[in-house]
């Protein structure tokens, strides 16, 4: 084997990594990026830029020369703000000294949480369709992913009845993400209560990714961490990307009992050292008065959700009313083609990009993820073009 032979390099990769499939999102991105004048419903981020006072705050901190490392856990003043915000919005209290870790987005926090908890062979239950990184992160920790399939019939919910049969004596962790990317599904207090009772009964740790919490439209968001007996077994993950339009800053956080934060911090300090200081400054600025910024953007998403929901249903694309996030997950099964074919043909013939449901797990087949975080004018054109496409399919 010659060292400069590229084939031999492939042979030398870790089998864990070579066995990981490529993200379906990336496959689709490669196709879309070749085309011009596409209306994209394929994004997973706000169409707003970060509120100006946040950007201005970050610029000021750079001008002041704040460019050094911070504490591994994150700047103390930021952790204090996070503690105050989480208590106010979610009703759970975490101590800024040892129960909060500032991370490079929720993505890093998820990785840390799973790696801090799992031994090889431990089972982790997560629900599909779900965010693209859940399964790979479990596999990268040498744990065993166990899929809980959700479906449109009940708004893509997880409930105790579906969960119980999947729990074995190897199950260590349950991962939840509500409101859900890509379905927009949400859980009621009753659902959360039943799930948490089962988690306590079976002694599971729950990792809850609540990045879309503030974008819950028709009722207040409830976190599973508020349920009896849950705070001590929950790793609560949140961040600034979605509700505050800060995706590119890569800044999030984990809140959990001190023992778990300490374990996650061990990995974080060796892999990341700390989250970028300018992003931490921006996050600190963002938490000064987040309610006002969020309210404006939420109102706008709410309108677009209503628009896309009624438009899809009017054109015969069945679609439940998503409870949160900024995604629609319409049902295309009656049209007799797969999600991938639908997405590719729609892109090719009408230049509208939407992500095949299968990018978020096999049970996403028969659905498309359509993000409505794009201007209402573009959504209107997209709706017209999808209508034309469906009419040609039916012919």
């Amino acid at each position: 084997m010659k060292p400069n032979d590229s084939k031999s390099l492939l042979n030398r990769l870790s089998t864990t990594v070579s066995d990981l499939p490529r993200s379906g999102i990336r496959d689709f991105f490669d196709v879309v990026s070749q085309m011009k004048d596409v209306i994209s419903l394929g994004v997973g981020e706000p169409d707003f830029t970060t509120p100006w006072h946040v950007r201005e705050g970050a610029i000021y901190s750079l001008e002041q020369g704040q460019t050094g490392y911070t504490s591994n856990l994150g700047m103390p003043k930021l952790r204090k703000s996070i503690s105050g915000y989480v208590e106010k919005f979610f009703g759970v209290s975490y101590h800024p000294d040892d129960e909060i870790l500032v991370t490079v987005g929720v993505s890093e926090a998820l990785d840390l949480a799973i790696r801090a908890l799992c031994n090889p062979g431990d089972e982790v239950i997560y629900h599909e369709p779900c965010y693209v990184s859940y399964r790979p992160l479990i596999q990268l920790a040498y744990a065993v992913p166990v899929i809980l399939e959700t479906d449109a019939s009940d708004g893509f919910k997880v409930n105790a009845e579906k969960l119980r049969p999947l729990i074995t004596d190897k199950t260590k962790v349950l991962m939840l993400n509500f409101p859900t990317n890509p379905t927009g599904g949400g859980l009621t207090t009753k659902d959360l209560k039943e799930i948490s009772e089962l988690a306590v009964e079976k002694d599971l740790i729950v990792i809850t990714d609540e990045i879309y919490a503030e974008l819950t439209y028709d009722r207040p968001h409830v976190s599973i961490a508020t349920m009896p007996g849950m705070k001590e077994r929950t790793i609560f993950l949140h961040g600034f990307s979605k509700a505050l339009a800060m995706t590119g800053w890569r800044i999030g956080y984990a809140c959990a009992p001190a023992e778990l934060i300490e374990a996650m911090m061990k990995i974080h300090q060796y892999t990341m050292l700390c989250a970028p200081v300018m992003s931490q400054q921006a996050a600190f600025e963002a938490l000064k008065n987040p309610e006002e910024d969020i309210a404006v953007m939420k109102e706008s998403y709410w309108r677009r959700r209503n628009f896309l929901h009624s438009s899809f249903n009017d054109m015969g694309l069945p679609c439940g009313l998503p409870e949160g996030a900024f995604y629609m997950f319409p049902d295309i099964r009656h049209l007799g083609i797969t999600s991938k074919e639908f997405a590719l043909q729609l892109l090719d013939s009408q230049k509208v990009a939407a992500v095949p449901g299968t990018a978020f797990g096999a049970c996403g087949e028969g659905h498309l993820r359509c993000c409505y975080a794009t201007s209402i004018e573009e959504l209107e054109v997209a709706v017209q073009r999808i209508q034309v496409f469906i009419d040609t399919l039916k012919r």
Partner: protein
Amino acid sequence: MNHLLALLKENARISLEDAARQLNVTVEEVAAGMQELEDTGVVRAYQAVVNEDKLEGASVTAVIEVQVQPEREGGFDHIAARLSRFPEVTSMYLMSGQYDLMLFVEGNDLRTVASFVSAKLSSISGVTGTATHFRLKTYKHHGVLMELSHETERLQVSP
């Protein structure tokens, strides 16, 4: 603020059908809501936001600080009502601080505005002093940035 009003403040030209779709209500409910906003005087007009700097022979705008002698009966309201009726006055506010009324005045050229101040405004009884500032350039008007923003690049597909 109600949902309909928030929508109209962003886009007053929206059709009843589109408004209904976005607010998850019927067309009739939108029409009734607009009627109520108009009848109660909450919504007073629907206007275009114009970048005057883009127009040939653009008009002149001045901000005028006006000091007045409030009257025993009616305070500032009586004299304010008289001033606000001049068509040259496009906006007018009662202010706290060094002066009392702030007027936005528009005219075809500098001379028109100057003569409005000297001939009409200053001669009204009760007006005790004025200070006129001319607009040089508009950066933002009614919450709208006057410079066309360039699109920031967003990935077309992201997780």
